[in-house]
């Protein structure tokens, strides 16, 4: 039976189910057992499954990732979590050199069923080292899978599927999604890795997005509909493996495409999507693809200037209108904006993080 729960609760349900269903699964992360339980996602799990299966850990990102690789190699299913993706840079050696390659180097002899949950920060003065989106770093590496769910339903289904996957999976949760609501079945289910979803069907322009950008894309699509522009929103869900077919099918239908990326444009994942469309869907294109991404600089802390950095809906709407040669009324848009400050996901959000 389905009911409305929050994204973080959906994550917790996926972890709960996986611990009960997979005897070799265990959770480790700094703060995984503390009273806050990684934004509520691990709350109560230690009590239910014991200290051996839900554990806190030393502040040793690289070493503990290696420990997880070693345990996974021996048949365990570690689920590691960090409260910000920025910390995982300390563990790139173990992820890229070992986790991603051990199955290959052992000629298929060993599997590394490892999930690393990472939280992407945004707004509220997160600053240069707590608001990076580094998904493209991982998508670059064969041997890794990269998952970025946008809804509570997908969060639960994709996390269960990721934990059951026999490969290292980087599972990115946007902090601004943790408190979003959505329909989630009580029972367990899997959302397969590598399949995108049409979050909203449309015929005039394809907006390709993942994670929190899907929420923004849906808002923009709604705005565009007021001008009788029918936008299709493609939620990638998994960046590697990438559902190329879904992207190309959508662009074949609309001929116009805008890619939203919560990270930087240069060398980033939005370029990968556009390359795919140009290489394999060139004939579908009626206009040059556009990318909306983070400003090309580190994110400053002050709310007075961070407003210049994050991709914003007015810009997205303008770009879409220009692409379709439709009129664009910025004043009208600003007047109808929600009034929620740019550095919080909603007006109820309070700090610190």
């Amino acid at each position: 039976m389905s009911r409305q729960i929050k994204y973080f609760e959906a994550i917790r349900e996926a972890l709960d189910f996986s611990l009960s269903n997979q005897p070799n699964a265990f959770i480790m992360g700094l703060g995984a057992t503390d009273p806050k339980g990684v934004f509520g996602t691990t709350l109560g799990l230690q009590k239910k499954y014991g200290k051996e299966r839900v554990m806190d850990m030393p502040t040793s990102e690289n070493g503990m990732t290696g420990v997880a690789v070693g345990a996974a190699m021996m048949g365990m299913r570690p689920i590691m979590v960090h409260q910000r993706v920025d910390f995982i840079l300390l563990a790139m050696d173990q992820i890229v050199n070992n986790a991603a390659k051990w199955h290959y180097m052992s000629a298929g002899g060993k599997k590394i069923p490892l999930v690393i949950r990472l939280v992407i920060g945004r707004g509220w003065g997160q600053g240069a080292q707590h608001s990076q989106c580094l998904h493209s770093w991982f998508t670059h590496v064969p041997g890794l899978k990269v998952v970025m769910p946008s809804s509570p339903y997908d969060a639960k289904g994709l996390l269960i599927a990721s934990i059951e996957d026999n490969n290292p999976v980087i599972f990115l949760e946007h902090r601004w999604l943790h408190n979003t609501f959505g329909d989630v079945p009580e029972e367990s289910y899997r959302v397969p890795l590598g399949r995108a979803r049409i979050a909203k069907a449309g015929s005039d322009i394809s907006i390709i997005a993942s994670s929190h950008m899907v929420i923004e894309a849906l808002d923009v699509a709604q705005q565009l509909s007021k001008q009788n522009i029918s936008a299709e929103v493609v939620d990638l869900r998994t960046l590697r493996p990438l559902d190329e077919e879904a992207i190309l099918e959508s662009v074949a239908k609309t001929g116009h495409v805008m890619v939203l990326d919560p990270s930087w444009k240069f060398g980033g994942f939005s370029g990968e999507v556009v390359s795919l469309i140009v290489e394999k869907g060139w004939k579908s294109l009626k206009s040059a693809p556009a990318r909306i991404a983070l400003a090309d600089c580190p994110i400053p802390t002050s709310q007075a200037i961070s407003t210049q950095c994050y991709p914003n809906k007015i810009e997205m709407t303008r770009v879409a209108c220009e692409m379709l040669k439709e009129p664009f009324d910025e004043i009208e848009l600003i007047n109808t904006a929600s009034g929620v400050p740019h550095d919080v996901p909603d007006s109820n959000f309070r700090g610190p993080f």
Partner: protein
Amino acid sequence: MNSSQQLTMYQEMLRIRLVEEQIANAYAQNEMRCPIHLSIGQEATAVGACAALDKTDYIMSNHRSHGHYLAKGGDLKRMIAELYGKATGCTNGKGGSMHLIDESCGFLGAAPIVGGTVPIATGVAFSIKMKMHREVVISFIGDAVVEEGVFHESLNFAELKKLPIIYVCENNLYSVNSPMEVRQPSTRQIRDLAKGHGVKVLWGDGNDVEQVWNLTRKAVAYARSGKGPIFLELATYRWLEHCGPNYDNHIGYRTEAEFKRWKKKCPIGQYEKFLQKNRVLSSSQIKVMKREIGNEINKSFAFAKKSPFPEESTFNKHVYAN
């Protein structure tokens, strides 16, 4: 230790030496097309340490791993074939010399990123502890590993969780061509770092195979009894260049005199003298051993050379597991 064990250890050291000498000889033919890091001069650490393990125990290693692989019971044919990039190699040509992996003998793998396998070996020990099994793990490391952060992260965790792992540090004084004095302060020993993590330490002469065996036996007993990790520092010396088949005393980063001092402490030569003096080993036995090992080596190289290369289509197999 009885005389048959002594002869086995001698024979295993001799085998590793002769295998690596043949690798060095044949390397110029350009058929082994991967970097090789030979352990000539360091055979006692591999043989003494692995002799203290059970078959079901595990080891992980680094770029200089041929000796560890053979001492743990690795298959010589599969190792040489791997160096030749053949389908019959222990990882079907995917790994080469720097990535020997062979679970059938408990050799869980090697990697050339300094310290890279240390946390993995620690994770293997963690899984053993979680499953309440009785195996122990040896993580073979060099002196430079203690300069890596991941070493300290691993020891901290191993001691925290009392994991059944033995870190065997083969201190051969050089990281590539950089001597200890440019890398580490002289005011402390390597083993002091392990002590700082609360890890029990042992140390000794890495060129004395019986001493290595004795120390490792103690370490294994300690780790297996659930008391936690243990760190074993062994002094030894690499005779050849860091990577490749040649001597390199002439290039200037170390002196000929230093090399000669260590060569006098050859682990095989010393042990040979000791065993002969104690009438455990005779000259004729040595001859027989050398002949038998030579035959095995010839067969292994012939096997490797005549083995097929992997099918071209396998280049992108095993990127992802099913």
